[in-house]
């Protein structure tokens, strides 16, 4: 596979995944997440900070999209907006009534509950009847390869296992769209590789739409169908890359490495423009 096979497309003509038409000509029901000219300003007056500047982004149902950018590019802000934890200053965000859930870099598990209870609480919050909760929770823990660890408290689990519980909890919310904010950023490379495989398997199995934020270029090239590059201060979409898929994905595959190199170059260019 060669570099030429990657379609490098400027964002204003960005298509979704190859099966989907671009945002311009697209039918209304086609996007799982659609951001139109979204801006976010923090603060007021002279101290106001423009975190996001007219970001338009469309994620197709079932698509795995990675958002990448240097720190301060508003990646986390963007996810908070999509999750509805915060309101955009301008522009609109539509998830077409799909359920959205957010996973953080920290597992954010409730330390007073066991792993299983953490997952069950998400089921309870959704109104799943008590009788079904236990069974569904066991299924979810099995899905993330944590069967038999349900009785452990978060502090008794390793970092990777905690993120697995957090993933199970996110899945318990029965969301169609999974937003992930650097979820594996604090893990060692080996654990991260394992979790990449798990996440890919679960994403395929459950037909999820994933919007995955990272500052790790390799990770983005490993996981994403599409990699969206954001500029820093203010965050703005500057580039999108389609990642071709043939055969199993691996973080150390030569295609992935070349893809990562291309994206890294683009990011460097962007950073030098900022002088930092």
């Amino acid at each position, binding site marked *: 596979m060669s570099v030429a096979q990657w379609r490098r497309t400027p964002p204003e003509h960005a298509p979704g995944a190859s099966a989907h038409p671009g945002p311009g000509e697209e039918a209304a029901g086609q996007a799982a997440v659609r951001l139109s000219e979204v801006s976010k300003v923090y603060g007021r007056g002279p101290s106001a900070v423009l975190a996001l500047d007219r970001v338009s982004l469309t994620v197709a149902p079932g698509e795995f999209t990675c958002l990448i950018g240097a720190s301060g590019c508003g990646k986390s802000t963007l996810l908070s907006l999509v*999750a509805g*934890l915060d309101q955009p200053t301008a522009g609109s965000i539509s998830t077409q009534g799909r359920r959205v*859930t*957010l996973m*953080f870099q*920290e597992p*954010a*598990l*409730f*330390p*007073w*509950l066991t792993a299983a209870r953490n997952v069950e*609480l*998400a089921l*309870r*919050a*959704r109104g799943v009847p008590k009788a079904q909760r236990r069974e569904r929770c066991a299924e979810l823990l099995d899905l993330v*390869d*944590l*069967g038999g660890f349900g009785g452990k*408290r*978060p*502090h*008794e*689990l*390793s*970092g*990777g*296992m905690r993120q*697995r519980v957090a993933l199970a*909890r996110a899945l318990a*919310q029965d969301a169609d769209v999974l937003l992930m904010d650097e979820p594996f950023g604090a*893990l*060692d*490379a*080996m*654990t*991260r*590789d*394992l*979790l990449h*495989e*798990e996440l890919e*398997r679960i994403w395929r199995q459950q037909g999820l739409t994933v919007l995955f934020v990272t500052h790790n270029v390799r990770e983005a090239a490993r996981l994403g169908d599409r990699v969206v590059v954001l500029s820093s201060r203010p965050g703005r979409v500057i580039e999108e890359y389609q990642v071709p898929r043939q055969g199993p994905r*691996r973080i150390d595959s030569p295609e992935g490495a070349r893809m990562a190199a291309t994206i890294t170059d683009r990011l460097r260019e962007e950073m030098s423009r900022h002088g930092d």
Partner: protein
Amino acid sequence: MATETRPTPKPTAISGLDRLELGPAQQRRSPARVARSAWSATWPKLLAIALILVIWEVVHLTGWKSYVLKGPGTVLPDLWGQLHHALLWQAIGITLRRAVLGYGLALVIGSVIGILVARIPLLRAAVGSIITGLQTMPSIVWFPVGIVLFGLSTLTILFVMVLGAAPSIANGLITGVDYTPPLLLRAGQTMGLRGVTLYRYLILPASLPAYVAGMKQGWAFAWRSLMAGELLVLILGQPSLGVLLDNDQNLQDFAGLGSIVIVILVIGILVDTLFSKADLAIRRRRGLLPPGATS
């Protein structure tokens, strides 16, 4: 390493490098180990008690105020004797009943005020600093007010106990609510926890450590107020610990006084131990104990 196997077999599935973070499996504690750790927790306390008795005895032997001051050799047998009489137990019963009533009342009132102040910004602006102010108020100040309002009755004592303990309990709860980690709040929000369920399943459990700390402090205030109250508000036909103290004071009975003081001290220590145990259990559950910490 088995990073590429799929479907991942169970044992290797979670064996990233982070596996090393897991401690060794918990060993079953043998009776000998339990006995040893119990002994290592007990002997410093026994030593402290022995030291106090020795100092007391030495002071007694110097003959200082020998016409009233009695040594442990007189006081401890007196205590032993009183423990075989119904009067002391009746007094302990009356005092503890007041303690439970007053503290229970303070717990309810403090918790309700705490949760309201934590939830409602206007209320916090209005009474937040008053609660802290009340905490610094010496409880003895309230007795004249209580006596004017309720006369020489149990109600007066309860009134002062509540005023002493409720602010600490309320403040503990408010602090706990304020210190709920924002990340957990965001996690709760994404999960769809709102309003009452948010409090029930996230904010209140998250505030539990600070709440228990407030309850512990509240108990100390309540117990002090109760003792002061029983000495100031003597109620006929209700021989409380305070009444016994007052009697012994009037009779210049040092042995009797010493015995009651020891009883009061022991009750205080026992209740404090309960709170410490609760606090320890909470911290252990949440993994907030340094590794290897026992008592």
